[in-house]
């Protein structure tokens, strides 16, 4: 087989004829750094959230699989991120209870624990209007973690709850003292007080040391920096219950839209990527606040025909679900779209369907239209802005 030689540094070249394949900066030629207490990203990877004044968005086009790295989880807060000493933090449950109680973070960690992978999404998650938008720009106010904490129902066993209970108020200890009204049924269902995210303490932007987790419900209701829960027979009609997180539906204003409607987005290919003709695995995420993703369909002809995409197992309830669809692109201009159907049979609507159902003035909350990417003949990918009216 001729002379088989080690890949070599030019400096230590020793076997004739191998210099031609000499590798510069060969990592096999000198030992690397030793083990460390806490790892760091490669300097070649710089994913960022792109912060605005009031939020920051997950770079969906740069993430893989279903877990969002904790330091890239989207943020939305109304008065900044408080600094909280977990040893001093306490949570109060009172109102229509038998015994009002206070819990330290350490108390909460002692109760039977539950872990669950699910998404949290801002109810205002959707931006359009121009072509040079990335998935992060369009839909970056959604992220997913493995959350660990105690079921709220476990705590309510301790306090007891009056039969008149219909709602509960959850309140944060940020400078917005953020409050939302939540139906008590959610407490008996799957509401949790979580202290951990992706294997570690939840991050400050996610509510450290504890937040409310309401799987599938709009992000704002998952009160961060939680300090109080009051059980009630009436809703509180807080500012975020009423003047925010509500939207015109024809001649009315719809409130208390808790569940995030099913939606999906293609994250690859997307702006600002450029693709070549030939085989392309179209990839994206789909989810529903009402349960599992039943199926995702992809169209590569601008919505004329639709085909089933593959779903990455395990498909979990109220969780970002990865979908993938193989496409052999012939190089002609086209548009690619995805639409999800959830386990209730709900099919992600077009913007036109939404406008017909809600009227043209429908506002920015709970907008989950099918979105399209334009594929140009040179392989450039652009968002397709849609206009109603």
């Amino acid at each position: 087989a001729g002379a088989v030689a080690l890949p070599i540094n030019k400096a230590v070249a020793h076997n004739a004829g191998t210099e031609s394949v000499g590798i510069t900066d060969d990592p096999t030629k000198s030992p690397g750094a030793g083990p460390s207490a806490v790892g760091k990203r490669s300097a070649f990877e710089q994913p960022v959230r792109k912060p605005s004044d009031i939020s920051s968005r997950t770079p969906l086009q740069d993430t893989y699989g279903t877990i969002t790295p904790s330091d890239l989880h989207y943020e939305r807060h109304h008065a900044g991120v408080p600094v909280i000493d977990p040893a001093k933090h306490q949570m109060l449950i009172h109102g229509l209870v038998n015994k009002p109680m206070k819990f330290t973070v350490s108390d909460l960690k002692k109760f039977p624990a539950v872990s669950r992978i699910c998404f949290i999404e801002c109810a205002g998650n959707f931006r359009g209007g121009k072509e040079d938008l990335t998935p992060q720009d369009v839909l970056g106010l959604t992220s997913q973690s493995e959350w660990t904490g105690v079921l709220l129902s476990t705590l309510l066993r301790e306090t007891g709850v009056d039969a008149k209970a219909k709602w509960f108020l959850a309140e944060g200890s940020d400078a917005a003292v953020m409050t939302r009204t939540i139906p008590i049924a959610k407490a008996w269902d799957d509401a949790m007080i979580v202290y951990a995210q992706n294997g570690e303490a939840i991050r400050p932007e996610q509510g450290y040391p504890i937040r409310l987790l309401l799987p599938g419900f709009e992000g704002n209701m998952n009160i961060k920096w939680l300090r109080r829960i009051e059980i009630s027979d009436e809703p509180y009609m807080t500012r975020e219950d009423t003047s925010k997180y509500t939207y015109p539906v024809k001649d009315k204003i719809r409130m208390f839209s808790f569940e995030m409607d099913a939606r999906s987005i293609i994250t690859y290919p997307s702006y600002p990527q450029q693709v070549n003709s030939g085989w392309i695995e179209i990839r994206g995420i789909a989810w529903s606040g009402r349960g599992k993703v039943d199926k995702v369909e992809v169209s590569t002809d601008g919505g004329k025909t639709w085909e089933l995409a593959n779903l990455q197992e395990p498909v979990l309830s109220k969780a970002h679900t990865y979908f993938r669809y193989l496409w052999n692109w012939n190089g002609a201009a086209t548009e690619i779209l995805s639409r999800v159907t959830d386990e209730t049979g709900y099919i992600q609507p077009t913007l036109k369907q939404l406008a017909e159902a809600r009227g043209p003035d429908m506002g920015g909350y709970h907008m989950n239209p099918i979105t399209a990417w334009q594929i140009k003949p040179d392989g450039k990918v652009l968002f397709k802005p849609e206009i109603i009216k």
Partner: protein
Amino acid sequence: ALIVDNNRSAIQLPQADTTKWPASFEFGRQATPAEIAAWDIDVRPDGKGLPPGKGDAKTGSTIYTLKCAVCHGAGGRQAPDEKLLGAALVGDTLATSRPKTIGNYWPYATTLFDYIRRAMPYNQPGSLTDNEVYSLTAYLLNANKIIKNNTVINAQTLPKVVMPAKKLFIMDNREGGPEVK
């Protein structure tokens, strides 16, 4: 009657474990009335939670100019060329008018007291006295043409204020399924 309904939990706990759950784990402790009072700052539409005290639009106007106008504009309206940190607070009471303000979009007057007391002024939340909050509430309700100039706002009168937008609000009744609504 007390509800202890652990069985309705969607995250099913295996029977092996739930059967041995004690009536109480005895973690946490009873909260004292003082602790509850210190944090129980919410106000409901029926007036539950409103503190003693009172205010009026005239007093509120002075406080507004001093503590609020810098972010929300003189009189709660933004001049066309202004770009302020806070949103417009005063506008038309016509449901279709924009921007969405207290006058045309807020369904309950109690929310105003609750929100101002907990969150405003933005740079010094929780610094207002209850009387100041009553007066600012009165001022903003009056500026939005909802109450008269001289109405005294207190725990009894505030819940009775009917907001123009109230009639527009409907609860979402969607439950999933194929229909787009």
